[in-house]
């Protein structure tokens, strides 16, 4: 889907919104974890 335009399902738009929402949610969680650990560590090191 996203980008390859292959969906022929009737609710393609809704699915695409779902894909975007889930991807953003998981991406944000992963990014917050990933960057968060490193930022927390730098903050801790400078105290």
């Amino acid at each position, binding site marked *: *889907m*996203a*980008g*390859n*335009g*292959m*969906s*022929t*399902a009737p609710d393609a738009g809704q*699915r695409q919104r*779902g*894909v975007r929402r*889930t*991807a953003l949610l*998981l*991406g944000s*969680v*992963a990014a917050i*974890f*990933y960057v*968060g*650990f*490193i930022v*927390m*560590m*730098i903050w801790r*090191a400078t105290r």
Partner: protein
Amino acid sequence: MAYNDHAATAHDHDAHDHKPHGWRRWVYATNHKDIGTMYLVFAGISFFIGGTMAMLIRLELFKPGMQFLDPQFFNSMTTMHALEMIFGAVMPAWTGLANWMIPMQVGAPDMALPRLNNFSFWILPFAFTLLLATLFVPGGGPAGGWTMYPPLMLQGGAGFPMTIFAIHMMGISSILGAINVVVTIMNLRAPGMTLLRMPLFVWTWLITAYLLIAVMPVLAGAVTMLLTDHFFGTTFFTAAGGGDPVMFQHIFWFFGHPEVYILILPAFGVVSEIIPTFSRKPLFGYEAMVYATASIAFLSFIVWAHHMFTVGMPLAGQLFFMLSTMLIAIPTGVKVFNWTATMYRGSLSFEPPMLFALSFLFLFTIGGLSGLMLAIVPADYQYQDTYFVVAHFHYVLVPGAVFAIMGAVYYWLPKWTGNMYDQTLAKWHFWLSTIFVNVLFFPQHFLGLAGMPRRIPDYAVQFTDWNMVSSIGGFAFGLSQFLFPYIIWKCVHGGVRVGNRAWEGAHGLEWELPSPPPFHSWTEPPSDALIQRGAAH
């Protein structure tokens, strides 16, 4: 850019089977099957690179004394072998299988985020080139073990920051791949493909993907702290500056134990696909298998300190981690029971995938039982850092994860290529692998119990005999693996044609597609009747 240009205008239904050619097909690949193939080829190459390192280790350990390798290089080999096999072979192999199979099994046309998929894959060759390049810089490759414990790891040369950067890249690749898997499963399942109709391989991968998203950032944090300790004057893990090297072990194993399940959960999924097919019976206790997988994943977060009983911790801590570790035996036992019950009174046949699944069942259980022994705190004081531990985790990872990957390839290869492979040769591959994997690793239990420490290039003479046996097993196992790419190569280039359902007892949406499947499969979602027929568990 022919492929991407095409993809942008792909509303034209006739164009769905347009396949880009040449290098562009692979470099710009967004098709899940192509990316799956690239992951699998990458994993195969890493398997042979990591295997060569293992052969060098076994060569040096063939007899006591220093023979061929410099001790520093030997330590690099143990470290690089582990990194190469875990992050370069087993994890990419699972991701490759996920790419190939998940869209076909849930009735989706592709992975949800195809360009991200391309990016996730192409990070890997750069990461591993960087990692392998450490062997050629001053100071050599990382030599502190794959666990990278400080202060030893901090003594690395120019290869140290390269290793850290390579690990970051591998971690980012894994996280992006995991996001893609979750988004695909949660959003692109065909209408009617409810969660409890999904094949077990999809379920185990869904849970694995959540584990990856949760723990890879922890590894990233841990190695970044190592980096800042080395280059920027922090003292997270340096006692002289108020830091604590044991803290690294806690952080590392908080990642490391779930990582073990990241390597093995998809294997549970594959075995849960293969055994029903060749037993010609539905999987016994499908829902129990799903809950057992989720339980194992949950428990993996609360057992990490069993890897470090001997660093010294309060008795309450030891008891907690011992008992929580033992709890894992319950859902794992549920799985082994259910696989056995699936076979009970089944109409069994022993094609290569089933042979690998059965070998997995017996030998993974041996690895699980030695794991239970290691969970016992007073016993662990004896086993810690000996070859018993090496034997344990190799039983879990080689006849466990690697055999499951091989079983999966033998199971789905006819679907991917449309050809049946040479089953006689595949059975040779199976028997040679199963016999020699035991010759290789079983004696290591004896060596460990007798007190031989791990990660040493030399040893006391009383350990000689079993080391020789182990090395002979290693060389024979290593050589027999060349059959695997040969069988695959031969199958890709011809063989007896197979129908949609390459195995008579196979169920699942992938078997409703032609063999080989079209470049874009399920462009129309499968009907409910097909889904119900596939979900015959």
